[in-house]
């Protein structure tokens, strides 16, 4: 039974006047985390945009309890914190809120270790597809062909498939989500919070500044990613993969919008070549067919 928008809590966990850029998908995502988990969450946040979004101490623009931590440590810190809360008999949902850098690159070892140990935490990767906080440098999550300040002629490597990697860690819950589909994200987060063990949610977060599009289009861009098939919404409980309702139509490749539409709207793909577009189209098709084969 999908949650009704009317029933979403109004309590603000992202407070007006924080330091996020206008149109920031991380700010949006954090609001959804607040709606999903409320007072139960303790966030562990490694270096990234959200470190800055909190604003300047002694004030914080976010109303969660937040433990800011060094870049490569987040899941380990969260594992320890989760253990302490259990030992003390205190209820809490310990959530790592990490960017793509803090999850897939510098944070990869701590992520994989915690997943392999099945530590009782939720890891949300808020993926804006580059090291945005330090000024738009490429990450393993940057798509093929995208401009960044360290890939001026476009990234030569493909996006590292983190959700599938986490699936292969055989953890209780793996899901992808998008800021364009908040109810889907909130449901997934609430479901994860009722489960024991390591839960992973990969949140697609289009960044107006880094991807070069107007800040009013954040939600539009996130939706278009799903509609072109470039981003697939799914969840896997105990390894059983299910395509999420918003992505279901796009299992049929004839219903996917052309990825050119998506690419054309983002300045980071301005100089992209035909070859790369063909390669990206092939990747979309391959990703879909691999995922469909994994579904039950």
């Amino acid at each position, binding site marked *: 039974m999908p949650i009704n928008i009317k029933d979403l809590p109004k309590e603000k966990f992202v*407070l007006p*006047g924080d330091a996020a850029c206008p149109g920031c*998908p991380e700010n949006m995502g954090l609001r959804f985390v607040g709606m999903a988990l409320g007072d139960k969450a303790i966030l562990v946040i490694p270096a990234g945009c959200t470190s800055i979004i909190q604003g300047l101490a002694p*004030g914080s623009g976010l109303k969660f309890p937040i433990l800011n931590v060094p870049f490569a440590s987040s899941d380990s810190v969260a594992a320890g914190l989760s253990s302490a809360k259990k030992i003390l008999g205190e209820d809490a949902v310990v959530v790592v809120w990490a960017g793509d850098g803090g999850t897939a690159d510098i944070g990869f070892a701590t992520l994989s270790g915690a997943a392999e140990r099945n530590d009782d935490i939720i890891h949300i990767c808020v993926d804006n597809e580059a090291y945005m906080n330090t000024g738009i440098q490429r990450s393993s999550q940057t798509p093929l062909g995208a401009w960044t300040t360290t890939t001026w002629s476009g990234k030569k490597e493909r996006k590292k498939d983190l959700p599938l990697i986490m699936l292969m860690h055989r953890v209780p819950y793996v899901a992808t989500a998008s800021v364009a589909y908040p109810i889907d994200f909130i449901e997934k987060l609430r479901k994860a919070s009722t489960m024991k063990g390591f839960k992973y949610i990969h949140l697609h977060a289009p960044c107006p500044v880094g991807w070069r599009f107007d800040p009013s289009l*954040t939600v539009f861009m996130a939706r278009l990613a799903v509609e072109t098939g470039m981003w697939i919404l799914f969840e896997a409980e105990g390894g059983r993969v299910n395509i999420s309702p918003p992505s279901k139509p796009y299992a049929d490749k004839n219903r996917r919008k052309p990825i050119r539409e998506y690419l054309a709207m983002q300045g980071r793909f301005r100089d992209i070549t035909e070859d790369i577009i063909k390669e990206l189209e092939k990747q979309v098709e391959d990703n879909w067919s691999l995922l469909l084969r994994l579904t039950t």
Partner: protein
Amino acid sequence: MRSQPKKLLRRWSVLSSELMWPLAKPAIGVSGKTGTWRLQRPVFDSSKCIKCRLCWLYCPDSTIDINEEGANFITINYDYCKGCGICSNVCPAKAITMYPEE
């Protein structure tokens, strides 16, 4: 030599020992009045509003509030609205229009 630290202590009127931990508490407007960042401002036309709540849902900055009763279903907090335009973009009824900020 310790005069500046003492001034800081007085300004925040906290116990000096508490002051020494790198802690912060939630506060509205940590970046000041972010409404001054705006290049454009959202203007709400209540007559078109269908009360779908999408603007409230998507506003990244929690600057749209819902009034369940009353003439205007939403109010926009212009002190902090950064003028991103997402509310206008997601509104299915075109009830929010972006105008250039003076």
